């Protein structure tokens, strides 16, 4: 799984899955740019990575803000000389039953989860095309298959899948691959913060494996797609969801 000396940008890397991805890539020798909208989180993760003897740079900014994204990519190229790997991980959720879902809730989720992937991918692909090398890995979600109270989230993540497949087709000739990972329920601070322990317990028991995924287990799939050796793999959608995509039924939560 070679990512050694590759330069990787991970969006939404200030916590949870993104943090795990950044740390795993760094531990395999990649130089990592830690993007998040929270500056303190960017700095903390970057500093923790540096303390393990690897190179990391904090880059605060929103993923759908074209100017901010351009500036981040420019800084990355100035500092590290190239952009090899882009992991579009930043995402938000605003769950609400369909009949009550507002335009604001729809737009906010689509803006970060889908437009953010478009803007970051397009900008990074400019650098990757010039280098004739690139790995784009997008974090979709098992929920793109459709889920209760997630019309906005599911649509955004479904959009990520079709965008990924189109990136794969259009960018293949520049030696750029694009793949998507679809996590199921993952144990993150965000999830624990939002749910009381008894709800977390119930969610866990409702998973086919009887447990939630760990951020590191999602990061493992990103490392694969980001590696040199995965050059022949593009346009793929891989579920890392404890088997739930096999036979998702409502009573599995």
């Amino acid at each position, binding site marked *: 799984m070679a990512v050694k000396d590759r330069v990787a940008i991970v969006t939404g890397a200030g916590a949870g899955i993104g943090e795990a991805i950044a740390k795993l890539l760094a531990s395999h020798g990649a130089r990592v740019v830690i993007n998040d909208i929270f500056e303190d989180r960017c700095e903390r993760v970057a500093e923790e990575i540096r303390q393990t003897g690897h190179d990391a740079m904090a880059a605060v900014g929103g993923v759908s803000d074209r100017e901010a994204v351009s500036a981040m990519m420019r800084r990355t190229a100035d500092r590290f000389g190239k952009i090899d790997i882009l992991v579009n991980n930043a995402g938000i959720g605003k769950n609400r039953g369909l009949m009550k879902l507002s335009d604001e809730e729809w737009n906010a989720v689509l803006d970060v989860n889908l437009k953010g992937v478009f803007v970051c991918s397009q900008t990074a692909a400019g650098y990757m095309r010039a280098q004739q090398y690139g790995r784009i890995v997008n974090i979709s979600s098992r929920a793109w298959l459709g889920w209760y109270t997630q019309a906005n989230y599911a649509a955004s993540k479904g959009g990520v899948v079709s965008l990924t497949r189109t990136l794969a087709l259009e960018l293949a000739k520049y030696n750029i691959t694009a793949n998507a990972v679809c996590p199921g329920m993952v144990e993150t601070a965000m999830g624990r913060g939002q749910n009381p322990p008894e709800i977390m317990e119930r969610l866990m028991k409702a998973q086919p*494996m*009887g447990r939630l*995924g760990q951020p590191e287990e999602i990061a493992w799939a990103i490392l*694969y797609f980001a590696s040199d050796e995965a*050059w*022949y793999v593009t*346009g793929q959608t891989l579920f890392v969801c*404890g088997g739930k995509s*096999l*036979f998702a039924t409502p009573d599995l939560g």
Partner: protein
Amino acid sequence: MSVARRAALVAGAASIGRAVARTLAGAGARLAIVDADHDRVHRVVSEIADAGAEAVALVADVGLPGEADRTVAETVERLGGLDILVTTFDVGRDEEFLAMNLEQWSTAIAGNLTPLFLICQAAARHMAERGYGRIVNVSARDWLGWDRRANYAAAKAGVVGLTRSIAWELVSRGITANIVAPGWIDDERARSLPEVVRSELAMQPIPKLGSPEDVAHAVLFMAADEAGYMTGQTLYVDGGRSVFSSLTA
């Protein structure tokens, strides 16, 4: 990475099986390789020995009654366990559907699917007892359906259905079961069909042949300890060609 010290059985020692065995051995797994062809399996084992690793050669046709059980028992005895099973059966003769005869049909089913059922069951029985297992079955992108390959496509679709069923039934037993589906790979078949390959590759997003090592790398990814939250999945190593087909998540 995380197949180190694991006991792995690779079934099939042709091009992809050979690459898988060498890759797993290189990553530190303890290895047994089974093939019906005595010379083929011993050749791979001596290559691995030359590279400074170790592997056990087993000669058996695991599609025959009792042979899969014997193979798994011998693997467990020689390696002290069985954590990882990778199957790479690949039998199929190209023929137009309208001309395909029963023998060609039966050869593909018997060569790809029957040994798969038997070896997966024998291995999974052992793994279920221990509460840990990684099964990776090599199917083919052709399972989506392709010219002159009705027998092969049906058998390779069977690989997907069987693997997903194993994944679901054993999801609570610590066993994952996943599928790698290669597209055009630089192997004997591709080399025997230069004209077909040329026109096929022209239609691929990545217009090149993959290597057996590319497939092995995907197998290694799915066979690792860290891949424990992923089961029942199909990963295409096919230069992006499957993007032109509908999603089969």
